[in-house]
């Protein structure tokens, strides 16, 4: 299963917006997903990402699903955000 983050916008910045995105994912795309299901998170098309938004989505998804893959993470703000989550939020991927 693939989650295309650009469908939530190109500037993913605030914590409330991240929380909203996570809730929507839980009630739609991930509703019947198994814990061991392969989940791909696609960052293509995302212009700006912050740790606040990502903490509410990426960190939480990584706690919920063990087979998570991150795709198209070249954007500098995506890179810096993932580095922050790995360093301070315990993100393991």
């Amino acid at each position, binding site marked *: 299963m693939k989650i295309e983050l650009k469908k939530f916008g190109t*500037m993913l*910045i*605030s*914590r*409330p917006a991240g929380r909203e995105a996570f809730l929507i994912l839980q009630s739609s795309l991930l509703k019947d997903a198994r814990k061991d299901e392969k989940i791909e998170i696609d960052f293509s098309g995302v*212009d*700006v*990402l*912050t*740790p*606040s938004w990502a*903490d509410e989505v990426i*960190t939480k998804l990584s706690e919920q699903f063990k087979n998570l893959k991150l795709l198209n993470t070249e*954007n*500098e*703000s*995506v890179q*810096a*955000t993932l*580095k*922050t*989550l790995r*360093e*301070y*939020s315990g993100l393991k991927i």
Partner: protein
Amino acid sequence: MKTVMAFGAFDILHPGHINFFKQARKYGDCLIAVIARDKTVLKIKGKAPRYNEKIRLQFIKNSGLADKAVSGSLTDKYSAIKKYRPDVICLGYDQTTFTDKLKSKINKLKLSAKIVQLWPYYPDKFKSSFLDMNNNIENLMKEWLKTDNPEDYRDYYCETRDVFQARLEKIKNILSNNDKTNPSAPLISAIAGEIGNNSFDHNMGNWPDIMGIFFGFAISDSDNECKIVLADRGLGVLKTLRRVMPDLKHNTEALEIAFTKTITSRFPEKRGNGLKFVKNSIMAKKFKLKFISGNAQISVSHDLQIKKIDEYIGGCLAIINF
């Protein structure tokens, strides 16, 4: 010879226009100004220009701001581009009319013209000089921190998070459309986004004074340095952190913790990595940050320095140079 083309009504000439031409001139050797016709201005702006097209054209010709000034066409808005085949087309930061299909039209005409979005110009309502805009934005921010009428600063005051996000998006587009700042645009936007959103996150429902933030952007006259300023009239870092660390005494101590330790004032939420992200990104990219809260200031560049200052800011103030 490199030809640059700029479009506009240029009705009542003001410092913003002068700044516009000054920036455009830097992209080539010959600057051609295309003056919008009266009917076009009426159609786009919904009102007729104060001065008719002949006067506006003559004024630009006499001003020396451009090397050549010509009238736009009423029948074909691309006619000047077809005739002069510019190497660069300069657009104002908010110029959206006619620009939507410009890129594809240029391709169809088999032109290699580069489209450049110019910087916005923030006039200073308190000074006649417009050259000192870099300092002016800081002065305006400091005035906003004390004023009884924050809404007077409507170009910079973001009362809600939505307004902040919309303005940040606009600034991100400006940065992305400029060669010099394009590589930094995503990260700078993320840094400003974290700082601005922090103000809303930590003060929501608790604003001691007015809600919202001041958010401004400026570029130095030499084009070499950009500045983003953010400020709030919220609780400040010390009071915010005391929710979870009641023994915390000094602003300097609070700032150090906020920028270096993973701690959140919104327990049990897992959070508190925003300012660490800001600090690490600033250091990695060799940008500069000055952040003040209470009587403490933290400066981040290649290293991190915290000191007590004479100034006192009730909420938070941030100045990012890049």
